[in-house]
């Protein structure tokens, strides 16, 4: 099992009544709430937490991109990745991901990721995402073009990394006379590609076909993940190969303490801060943002009150849906082994700081995980010796 420390970089000091006075943590949460002096503390703490993943023995760290919200203070994950490149020597740095339709032209992503890959000595994982629904409000990018822009931007980036330049790329959305990204990435043919998905079949088929890795978008009921990963494995089989464990990753809030009771006691308030204050608005789904089939599925699962984290009202709900893995090292190990073996995933992505959790507590949590959980999980679920399938290049036809 590969273990990644994922950080969202949340805003921790919202007013106690924030969720009563604000409907959304996204797009419209006023930026007057941001206290730059607190921000200085957060960023430096959070970067320290990420950098510490290396001495603790993690395999990598994950940063991600969100805009104009209190949920995550990382509008530019590539900036944070750049700092981490200089603070670490061994671990992977996964940017999961850059929201491609928000970059124009998207060759910007190809350039920045290539820079990071070259400087880090080939330690970058390139996550590529369509961007969250709220981002289409925050960037005024047309959500009805989200999918076609993503597909085109992705193809452009992959070609920019693999095809000798300069070449011309004339797509529907991006028309570039001279694509000639300089530098090229260090990893050959390009950094590993991770694609997050919320269960849409189109995304899974695409990821399976290209031999990339599929990362389930978090905060869903564990049964929803299990169903989705089963579907993903099926998609790989239809492509004529068996899914590799490292093509799948499970992202979860994780908290480890000496006993189950102590873990819940220390963790619970931060979970509710996260769920009540930071989640509202995350699921905004502007028109055309997903296919109607997916939109209908999401619409229904948000309303049934069971599938998504927003439906959690009691600790029992949290436990039942496994919206967070919380407990003693034994309990946490047991749950990870149970779910990861059923899902077949070879990447465990943990959120060790959640919501309002103070830094010292988050660092202790990550340390306990690294010392007492990681070795046990690795023993139960050893890495496969089977090589990862090679990503498929885009056919070299003029565009």
């Amino acid at each position, binding site marked *: 099992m590969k273990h990644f420390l994922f950080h969202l970089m949340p805003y921790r000091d919202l007013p106690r009544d924030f969720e009563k006075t604000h*409907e959304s943590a996204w*797009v419209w949460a006023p930026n007057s709430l941001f206290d730059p002096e607190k921000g200085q503390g957060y960023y430096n703490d959070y970067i320290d937490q990420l950098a510490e993943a290396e001495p603790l023995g993690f395999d990598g760290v994950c940063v991600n991109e969100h805009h104009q919200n209190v949920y995550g203070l990382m509008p530019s994950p590539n900036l944070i990745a750049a700092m981490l490149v200089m603070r670490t020597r061994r671990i992977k740095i996964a940017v999961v991901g850059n929201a491609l339709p928000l970059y124009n032209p998207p060759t910007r992503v190809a350039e920045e990721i290539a820079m990071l890959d070259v400087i880090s000595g080939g330690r970058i994982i390139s996550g590529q995402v369509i961007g969250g629904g709220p981002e*289409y*409000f925050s960037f*005024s*990018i*047309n*959500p*009805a*073009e989200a999918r076609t822009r993503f597909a085109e931007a992705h193809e452009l980036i992959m070609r920019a990394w693999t095809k000798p330049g300069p070449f011309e790329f004339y797509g529907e959305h991006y028309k570039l006379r001279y694509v000639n990204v300089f530098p090229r990435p260090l990893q050959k043919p390009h950094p590993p590609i991770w694609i997050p998905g919320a269960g849409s079949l189109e995304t899974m088929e695409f990821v399976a076909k290209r031999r990339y890795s599929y990362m389930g978008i978090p905060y869903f009921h564990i049964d929803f993940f299990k169903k989705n990963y089963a579907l993903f494995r099926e998609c790989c089989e239809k492509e004529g190969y068996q899914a590799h464990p490292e093509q799948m990753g499970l992202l979860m809030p994780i908290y480890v303490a000496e006993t189950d009771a102590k873990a819940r006691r220390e963790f619970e308030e931060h979970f509710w801060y996260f769920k009540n204050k930071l989640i509202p608005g995350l699921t905004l789904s*502007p*028109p*055309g943002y997903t296919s*109607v089939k997916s*939109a*209908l599925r999401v*619409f229904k699962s948000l309303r049934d009150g069971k599938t998504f984290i927003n439906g959690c009202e009691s600790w029992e709900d949290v436990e039942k849906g496994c919206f967070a893995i919380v407990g003693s090292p034994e309990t946490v190990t047991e749950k990870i082994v149970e779910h990861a073996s059923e899902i077949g995933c070879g990447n465990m992505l943990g959120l060790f700081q959640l919501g309002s959790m103070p830094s010292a507590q988050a660092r202790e949590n990550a340390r306990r995980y690294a010392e007492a959980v990681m070795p046990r999980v690795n023993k139960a679920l050893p890495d496969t010796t089977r090589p990862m399938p090679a990503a498929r290049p885009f056919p070299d036809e003029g565009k």
Partner: protein
Amino acid sequence: MQNTTTTIDVLGRKIHEIRGGEGRPLLYLHSAMGEAIWLPHLSTLAQGRELHAPAHPGFLGSEGIEQIRDIEDMVEHYQSYLDAMGWESVDVVGLSLGGWIAAELAARFPHRVSKLVLASACGIWVREKPIADIFAIDTRFPERLRNLLFHDVNCPAAQWMVMPGNVELPDEMLINIMNGFAATAKIGWNPLLHDPRLERILHRVTARTLCLWGANDRVVPLEYGEKYAKLIPGARLEVIPACGHLAPLESPVAWLAAVKGFLA
């Protein structure tokens, strides 16, 4: 003619349309609600006229939204539609989004529109009175949408109108609503439901024009009616008192009297 539902071929796109009535053709361009269905005001418009209400690409199964990137493409579509129908020129009534399309059509192809009714039409911009961001409406609060669309939320239409999120809707209806909204977003997400070029070409409109507004329109405020009436040569503005954005539903008698009177 009986009320019928038909499919028309426009540039190879299958377009859903409802038709009814006898007389000179009258083209109705629907709003983002997708009302190419027999709502009462459409039945009344079909009296004495041959009413055609096509669904825009993306609405009610009409094809071709993939090829439409912006309002200009939508107007090209309607020019081709007029060709397909064999009409050199026709009277057009457009509500809200449909009014925007109608205004663009009349400005870009003036000879093809004889009389024009712009009802609660978006398409232009008044800085002091921005059009409501209908895309940001939270479906968890259907009463907000109702409040936005109607002056009096207790009027009959506001009560029978289906609000997504309010009730369990059949999948087919949800799909139609979602597709219609996605098609609206495609042409109207940004800039929000208007085309900055339109106000510079409205002086070309030769159609006799009626701008028809609810006095208390909270989506496209009355100032838009005033601005359209000022920019279109010879246009007249008629205001329905105590009425909101969906004027033909909220004040059908006054709205229909104004439209029928103008078209007579």
